[in-house]
């Protein structure tokens, strides 16, 4: 097949197969030993990844004698400093998840896989693990040599040290995850006495192995074949998204530096030094264009820039750029990118919902269930009695006494069962029965609206109302 015919077939079914032969599919057959190079994006990455230190440290933060942030699963409460959120308010969590998802989408559509490259725990932990590998076994070329070398005392020693450190990190990852859900100091106490409950051991062991295997052994394979977000985010980029891109206009045709020096015609800026491939943690060649293996971490930009500095040409042969920009199409402004605007709109809505929820939490809720069998009871003096089941949720952190009053209802009605203030337990529901008795002759309708109000004796600002009905016979 000659060159011309081949060109014609691109874009047909056969074209796909031809492309396939140039695809580099990394199935993890050999470990990728990436070179570590300093640079702007490496520094940014170090800072963004170090946010994960919060994951390890925040659970030890105390607030008013309690853990400041605690997802207390056993007691079904979420503590956030002064705030306690009960499962009844969990709808805000769904808005929070929506907000986070949309933030991910919006950032991805603007600047591609920022999450993957700079924030993702898989990237962060893998980076730390390979940093330890680098310290213990030496730089990338030494590690490659060590892997190929026959087993001897030195190799065993290095490998054992590396895996031990990995395991310690994995263990701390498991512990740190757990103490977001159980009081940190209680957890350590139970742990060192080997008294964790079964579920605690299961979580710890799962996270220990999960961290060790995912970050230590699988590494970039997780991003390629396990992570659904990697694929989702890949399809959310378009020709307007800026992402690490090789400027093929400037770089091609690539060639070694000495050939360029010899003055061969029409040589591009790329000197084919392979530094961009060497530093890539997922082992892709960015010069093949955007591909699923690229987590857009920007490390190849650092590598290329350092080379460009050395050969004396300008930086940015590999840079954050959109496809439109490279192909010379007009670059649209951010507000001309409708998808991003839609994402932003949803983010604002979700954020508004959360703000509304947090400011309208209330410290007490009331629900009144009217007895339905019988709807009402005729008493011996001819009055009509209704029975109500009060369900009070006291969201404060102390037990409160409440009084019960009613608005509306029937003239001269009396409330029975709340002669003394009633106790409501904090942090859980309390139910009590209240009767309302009204003279039969005052009942004008079968159904009379009535509004109950409970009010704390200790703090009159803590109150709740509920609208319900008073049932009677047909007058």
């Amino acid at each position, binding site marked *: 097949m000659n060159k011309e015919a081949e060109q014609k077939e691109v874009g047909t079914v056969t074209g796909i197969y031809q492309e396939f032969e140039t695809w580099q599919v990394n199935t993890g057959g050999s470990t990728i030993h990436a070179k570590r190079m300093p640079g702007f994006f490496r520094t940014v990455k170090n800072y963004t990844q170090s946010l994960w230190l919060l994951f390890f440290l925040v659970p030890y933060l105390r607030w008013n004698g309690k853990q400041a942030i605690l997802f207390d699963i056993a007691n079904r409460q979420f503590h956030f400093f002064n705030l306690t959120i009960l499962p009844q308010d969990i709808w805000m969590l769904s808005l929070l998840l929506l907000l986070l998802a949309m933030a991910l989408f919006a950032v991805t559509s603007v600047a591609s896989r920022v999450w993957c490259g700079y924030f993702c725990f898989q990237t962060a932990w893998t980076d730390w693990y390979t940093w330890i590998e680098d310290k213990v076994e030496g730089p990338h070329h030494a590690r490659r040599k060590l892997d190929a070398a026959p087993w001897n005392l030195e190799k065993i020693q290095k490998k054992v040290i590396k895996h031990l450190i990995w395991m310690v990190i994995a263990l701390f990852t498991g512990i740190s995850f757990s103490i977001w859900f159980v009081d940190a100091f209680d957890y350590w106490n139970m742990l060192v006495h080997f008294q964790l409950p079964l579920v605690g051991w299961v979580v710890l062991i799962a996270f220990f192995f999960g961290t060790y295997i995912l970050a230590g052994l699988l590494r970039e394979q997780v991003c390629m074949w396990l992570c659904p977000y990697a694929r989702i985010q890949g399809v959310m980029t378009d020709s307007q998204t800026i992402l690490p891109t090789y400027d093929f206009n400037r770089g091609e045709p690539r060639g070694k530096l000495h050939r360029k020096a010899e003055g061969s015609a029409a040589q591009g800026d790329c000197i084919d030094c392979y530094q961009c491939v060497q530093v890539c943690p997922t082992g892709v060649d960015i010069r093949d264009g955007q591909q699923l293996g690229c987590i857009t971490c920007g490390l190849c930009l650092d590598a290329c820039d350092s080379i460009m500095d050395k050969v004396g040409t300008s930086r940015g042969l590999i840079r954050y750029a959109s496809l439109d920009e490279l192909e010379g199409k007009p670059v649209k402004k951010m507000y001309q990118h409708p998808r991003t605007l839609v994402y932003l709109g949803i983010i604002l809505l979700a954020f508004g919902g959360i703000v509304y929820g947090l400011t309208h939490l209330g410290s007490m809720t009331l629900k009144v269930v009217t*007895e339905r*069998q*019988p709807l009402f*009871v*005729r*008493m*011996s*003096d*001819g009055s009509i*009695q209704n*029975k109500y089941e009060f369900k009070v949720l006291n969201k404060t952190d102390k037990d409160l006494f409440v*009084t*019960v*009053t*009613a*608005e*509306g*209802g029937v003239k*001269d*009605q*009396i*409330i*029975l069962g*709340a*002669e003394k203030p009633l*106790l409501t337990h904090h942090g859980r529901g309390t*139910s009590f*029965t209240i*009767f309302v*008795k009204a003279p039969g002759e005052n009942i004008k309708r079968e159904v009379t609206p009535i509004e109950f109000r409970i009010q704390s004796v200790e703090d009159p600002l803590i109150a709740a109302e509920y609208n319900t009905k008073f049932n009677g016979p047909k007058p």
Partner: protein
Amino acid sequence: MSEKHDVSGVPTTGHVWDDDLADFTNQPPKWWMLGLTASALFVVVYWIYYPSVPFASTGGFFKGTGGWTAIKEMEADKGEVDAVRGKFEARLKDMTPAAILADNELSEYVKRSGKVLFGDNCAACHGQNGVGTRDKEGLFAPILNDDDWLYGGKIDNIHETITGGRQGMMVAHKDTLKEAQIVDVAKYVKAMSDEGKDKADADPAVAAGKKVFMESDCTACHGPDAKGMQAMGSPNLTDKIWRFDGSVEGIKRTTTYGVNSGDPQARVAVMPSFKKAGKLSDAEIKKLAVYVYKFGGGQAEVAAAPAVEAAAPVAK
């Protein structure tokens, strides 16, 4: 077999479709084969450990070496429930119904099991939630959630009623009173119920009835004020709640033939003893007493009901 694919070099099954399609004969991955083998071993162990093989001829089955049965598992689960209930039940055992009622936590606990007990034992006559049941003659069994009690609405009265049962008793008056007298007395008590007070002095229409009421044996059980005596289960005739049909016709019938009097037309009002029948344990009867008390008609031990009502906050 053993042919090789011309491009990939992988062995194929040797079968070719549609000119160039062939099946590779790649081995499954090792981890997959291990998983398959482990699953097969698991099945064998499971078969031996648990009951697995039915014997059609004898109706029996291979019982398994582990000794597992569904009954045992159910008993173990029941043990868990009993452990939760245990601490409440232990306290209930030695407490009087009044003490249980006074204890908020316990009476909440009792409410739940009381509901089940009531549904199983009481609701057939008294209706779900004590609303009473009716037959063609009117109320078949008393309403339990109002404040009118034949035998008293204090917690101990209710407990006693469930324990020992009750049997209403009113003699037939067809032989001692004339029919006209019975009509007069029926009108008299009906008027008292409707008006809430004795109208005989003001209203000559019912004065004749009052005379009959006072001079025959009515007062012996219902009292001179017709308010009844809970000690013997005679009802209050002046309130708005009638055990049997409250119309003049109905009252006439009750008076003529009595209640449980042996007359074939007599009203029937019998509640069995739940202790004697052995149906309910002491603790269950206590629970039921508290449950029934809390329907809304229970009467407090000391303070009279009106005093409590007066102290209650009155809605605007």
